[in-house]
């Protein structure tokens, strides 16, 4: 085993002890992946800092801990989840709430929206739409290096399913609210599958919230299929607390002429690792991968991006920015792979960071592997302080130094936020980021956790 063997053993045992229980509530097709995924997890283990892709992130802080595991949903737990209301004003979205990785047991497990769009439980979808599931489930999430992807496949049994049929331009976004709530420290995993067929358009917002002040560990996998000429936008808003760890793996598979964007907004969390894999699997595909992270105290945020240019004439843009305060740390690892046939590739990457203290630390690593000769690729990374000239410029107009610093940080962050296409969400993010920079807690008003 290449990972951390002692810690990994805990999770191997967890599987052995619970696999019957997990399988009993899961669809057969989802179960059919478990034993081989377990094999691969056994080989790879929980990643350690010796793994190149996790060089700057110490997962042990959260993985080496005894959690209650949430394998069987309990109906009474969902009462609180049902009461949860997102407070983003004017956000007109179809909402889905997941509690501890499970779709609520109370209402219909699958809902049909206008134009033949389906949203609901992935486990239910595996029973009702076997053709769709068999075509897409487990087809995009794969990793030769990250055991956590396989740990999810081995043990996750529910999550969100979205199906947008061919040609459907679905203007109203779907919002998934991931809630974790427990009276004990808790480990949970969920698995999402989003299918956006040819010529369709779809936008999804995933919000992560922790509802109780316990230690939480979430390991989530999302697979996205974006068909030919389809458009897909994903915004992820991570706003938990310092005792919550979120590890996400998002695999976006694109066919030709498709356009996607992925924006990770990390406002709060103890340890956050987002791995985003973009596969440009057809000519003229385009992807925009962005991220913003604001950290303080002991928080750690790690964004790992992998863009795979497999066909000619595709474009990718990466823009990741961070403001790091106190003794918080961050990492960015942006890989661009241009395969031999992917001529006329345009691939850009930018990672800019502001460190507000001497103790904050940022590791940034571009990784370009270019096997075609007619390409344009660029990358740039900066780690620094606020621009003194800009600060004086604002002060010279009568703006107090403290306020001027906030304006500069806000402007820095806004460059990422402006990529959010859903206007009420964009405004809300501007607002949340401003509150966060002012040191006011940015949790949504409906959050019950009074975490300081």
């Amino acid at each position, binding site marked *: 085993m290449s990972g951390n063997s002692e810690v990994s053993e805990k999770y191997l045992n967890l599987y052995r002890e619970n696999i019957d229980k997990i399988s009993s509530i899961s669809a057969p097709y989802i179960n059919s992946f478990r034993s081989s995924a377990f094999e691969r997890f056994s080989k790879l283990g929980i990643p350690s800092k010796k793994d190149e892709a996790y060089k700057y992130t110490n997962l042990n802080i959260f993985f080496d801990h005894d959690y209650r595991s949430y394998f069987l949903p309990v109906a009474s737990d969902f009462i609180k989840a049902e009461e949860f209301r997102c407070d983003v004003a004017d956000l007109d979205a179809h909402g889905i709430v997941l509690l501890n990785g499970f779709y609520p047991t109370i209402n219909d497990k699958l809902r049909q929206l206008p134009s033949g769009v389906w949203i609901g439980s992935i486990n239910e979808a595996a029973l009702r739409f076997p053709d769709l599931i068999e075509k897409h489930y487990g087809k995009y999430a794969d990793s030769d290096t990250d055991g956590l992807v396989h740990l999810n496949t081995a043990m996750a049994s529910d999550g969100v399913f979205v199906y947008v049929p061919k040609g459907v331009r679905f203007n109203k976004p779907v919002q998934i609210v991931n809630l974790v709530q427990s009276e004990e420290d808790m480990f949970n995993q969920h698995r999402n599958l989003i299918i956006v067929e040819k010529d369709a358009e779809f936008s999804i917002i995933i919000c992560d919230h922790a509802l109780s002040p316990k230690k939480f560990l979430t390991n989530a996998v999302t697979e996205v299929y974006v068909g030919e000429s389809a458009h897909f936008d994903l915004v992820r808003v991570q706003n938990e607390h310092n005792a919550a760890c979120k590890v996400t793996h998002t695999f976006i598979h694109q066919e030709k002429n498709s356009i996607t964007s992925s924006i990770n907004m990390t406002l709060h969390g103890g340890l956050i690792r987002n791995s985003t894999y973009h596969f440009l699997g057809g000519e003229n595909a385009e992807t925009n991968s962005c991220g913003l992270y604001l950290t303080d105290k002991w928080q750690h945020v790690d964004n790992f991006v992998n863009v795979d240019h497999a066909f000619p004439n595709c474009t990718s843009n990466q823009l990741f920015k961070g403001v790091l305060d106190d003794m918080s740390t961050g990492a960015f690892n942006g890989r661009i792979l241009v395969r031999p046939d992917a001529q006329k590739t345009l691939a850009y990457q930018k990672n800019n960071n502001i460190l507000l203290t001497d103790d904050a630390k940022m590791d940034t690593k571009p990784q370009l592997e270019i096997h075609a000769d007619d390409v344009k690729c660029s990358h740039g990374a900066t780690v620094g302080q606020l621009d003194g000239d800009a600060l004086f*410029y604002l002060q*010279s107009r*009568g703006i107090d130094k403290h*306020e001027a610093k906030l304006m500069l940080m806000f402007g820095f962050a806004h*460059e990422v936020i402006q990529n959010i296409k859903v206007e009420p969400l964009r405004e809300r993010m501007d607002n949340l980021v401003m509150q966060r920079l002012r040191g006011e807690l940015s949790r949504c008003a409906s959050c019950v956790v009074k975490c300081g």
Partner: protein
Amino acid sequence: MLDINNLKVSIAGKSILKGVSLHVKPGEIHAIMGPNGSGKSTLASVLTGREFAEVTEGTVTYMGNNLLEMSPEDRAKEGIFLGFQYPIEIPGVSMVNFMKTAVNEKRKHHGLDPLSASDFLKMMREKKELVEIDSKLANRSVNEGFSGGEKKKNEIFQMAMLEPKLAILDETDSGLDIDALRIVANGVNKLKKADNSFIVITHYQRLLDHIIPDVVHVLYDGRIVKTAGKELALELEAKGYDWIKKEVENNVIA
């Protein structure tokens, strides 16, 4: 309004201003001219509170207060404005937000309520017209992607918004074509009132064709070596700075 007495300033141990005295009364326009490296921009920096310059001697009194003890933002709120030689680009900060914050901070300082959104936008519109700035510029991030001329016009627009008592324009004319120069000069002339003053720092006389100064000073080697009326600017234009340099050297010898 402004009294500078025997001001001596050094930067990184090097003496830049070597005893400057200057007195500006309400309603006056002073031009400060001089060759490169004479200390013109350093003087502007000291007056607006840029920290890199160290005042070693002398006093600066503004409206009866010790200016050197005030923070840059307080100087601005008390009515000092600097038109930057090289305006700064600030991506992500909109002009509207920037000006709204600046105007309202100043109002707060003077015990006034913040402007309502509609009053503020009305004010923006009026000032844009006054200084003939393209209204699209105000919808963008501060100076981001602006041409050199647009940046300078934007300085004049900000000056119009903030209505300073004492405006210091640091080589606002440099890099401007004749049309932009005219717009900048017209902006200044329209904002000119009986009780506000300007210090126009410039290298060339041509700006002074449009902005008529009451007093012209020549700053050379850290000292004001000549002070006269507007005709001095014309003389400098015709003869260059060499004769001044010679005069100074002769005086030193004498």
